[in-house]
């Protein structure tokens, strides 16, 4: 392999990790909700979008009040403002749209989820308009070289923050009382209730935590591509859902692995498809890879890589 080939490969891997970190954060929201409710919350991508747009609004407001504030501080404070907005949104979605359907046939909440998704898109369109908003470079997007590949400070921040959040979540779920209650609820709601676990509270908390992750992921996407709009959550949500299925829906480690893997597959696929097809297909086929992966997983290994059981007892 020549030096240039290596640099290109490294570049694709780095891009894949950045993309994958975002997918993983969003996929965790899907998989956590699926774990406790057995429901695919298709409105989750919209929470990501609202996270990005409310951060943008908060940042604009902040800069008009305090014009001299450094970019990274602006971004940090506005993200911290957007997180509670998304948490409240996640709580409300569950309380209003899903809880009344807790014991309804499975199709009902699924259709409702799609409805909530469309509703949120339209609300966002009314609030923020149909146009694309440029997302200012609060954290520098000035590239630097790593072994011949280029990276931006934003990308470094994305990877570091995503990893830290995921480590924190793993700790919460596996080492705390709250996490134990969440896992117990995921395995058997009625028995967990019998042990004094407040099931409704745990389900609400699951939505709230997933929505907080979504808010952060939304800011990451907007900062990375320097753009935000009311429709950005749709494809991102579908891809993160794919990542969750790839890893094994319901499995937290699976969502992280699935997210990173999907990011790498997309990035490497888009990077090399031109060479592989002799220029017949180009990097604009990037989106196709995610859904190709989804179909392959559903056909050959529906339980995903870390195959969580569907129904099982000890």
């Amino acid at each position, binding site marked *: 392999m020549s030096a240039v080939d290596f640099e290109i490969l490294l570049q694709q891997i780095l891009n894949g990790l950045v993309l994958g970190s975002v997918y993983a954060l969003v996929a965790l929201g899907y998989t956590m909700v699926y774990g406790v409710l057995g429901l695919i919350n298709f409105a989750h991508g919209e929470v990501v979008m609202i996270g990005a747009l409310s951060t943008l609004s908060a940042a604009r407001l902040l800069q008009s009040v305090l014009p001299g504030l450094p970019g990274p501080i602006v971004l940090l404070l506005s993200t911290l403002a957007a997180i509670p907005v998304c948490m409240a949104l996640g709580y409300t979605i569950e309380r209003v749209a899903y809880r009344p359907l807790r014991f309804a046939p499975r199709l009902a909440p699924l259709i409702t989820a799609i409805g909530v998704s469309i509703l949120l898109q339209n609300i966002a369109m009314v609030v923020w308009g149909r146009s694309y908003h440029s997302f200012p470079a609060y954290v520098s997007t000035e590239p630097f070289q790593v072994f011949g590949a280029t990276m931006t400070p934003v990308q470094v921040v994305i990877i570091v923050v995503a990893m830290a959040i995921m480590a924190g979540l793993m700790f919460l779920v596996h080492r705390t*009382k709250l996490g134990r209650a969440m896992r117990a609820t995921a395995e058997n709601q009625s028995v967990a209730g019998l042990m004094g676990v407040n099931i409704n*509270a745990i389900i609400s908390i699951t939505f709230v935590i997933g929505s907080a992750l979504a808010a952060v992921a939304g800011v990451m996407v907007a900062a990375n591509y320097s753009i935000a709009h009311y429709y950005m959550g749709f494809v991102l949500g579908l891809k993160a859902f794919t990542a969750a299925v790839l890893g094994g829906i319901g499995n937290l480690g699976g969502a992280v692995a699935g997210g990173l893997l999907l990011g790498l597959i997309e990035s490497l696929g888009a990077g090399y498809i031109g060479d592989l097809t002799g220029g017949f297909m180009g990097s604009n086929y990037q989106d196709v890879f995610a859904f190709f992966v989804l179909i392959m997983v559903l056909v050959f290994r529906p339980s995903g890589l870390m195959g969580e059981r569907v129904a099982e007892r000890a």
Partner: protein
Amino acid sequence: MSALLEARSVGKRFGGLDALMQVSLGIERGEIYGLIGPNGAGKTTLFNVLTGLYRPDEGEFLFDGAPLPVGEPHRVAAAGIARTFQNIRLFANMSAVENVMVGRHVRTRTGVIGAVLRDSGSRAEERAIHARSLELLEYVGLAGRRDESARNLSYGDQRRLEIARALATEPRLLALDEPAAGMNATETASLRGLLEAIRADGVTVLLIEHDVKLVMGLCDRVAVLDYGRKIAEGPPARVQRDPTVIEAYLGGALHA
């Protein structure tokens, strides 16, 4: 002194089937009370109504003189009733000690904020939960399997783990649904020792069991259910000779 648990004319219907009809019984403090009867007699239904998984259609339970909450399992647990299941229902992917730790939930306070902030109070509580859970594993004889996933335990060990998890809720009444089912003679003998120890520690035991030898040897009193009705109640030796009971079992056997 009034009974610890009193069932007053409890009835439960599923569609056209009367699963329980006018079932009344009283369980005294400190006794081991057996509930027996042919398959489908309504024993497990009585457990489900008692522990709040089902709502009774009529009647009520008095626990220590006060009415039990209806249809709210975690409040029944808080009141001091714990149970195990005929078809074992552990948290299969969690370790043995974690299963027991979940059982402590009903007796501990730390909420979401504490779990996230991990202040000194919630960390101390977490340590206490862990320590108590290890004690309970030791008590039921599973100290060596603490970090094993519940799904990987042997059948007998899973039954013991369910008992440990139930004890973690600090029950005054422990309701066991066929704890000896699927156990060999040695396991049953050690289960009997465990149940006697639990009673000696002041926990009243309500026991559904098919193993006649175990019931006769262990229970102070038994009630017999047949087609949702209580047909007999009393010391095992007397109930065993009761013609109605013999008829219910033999009649069932002849029809089978």
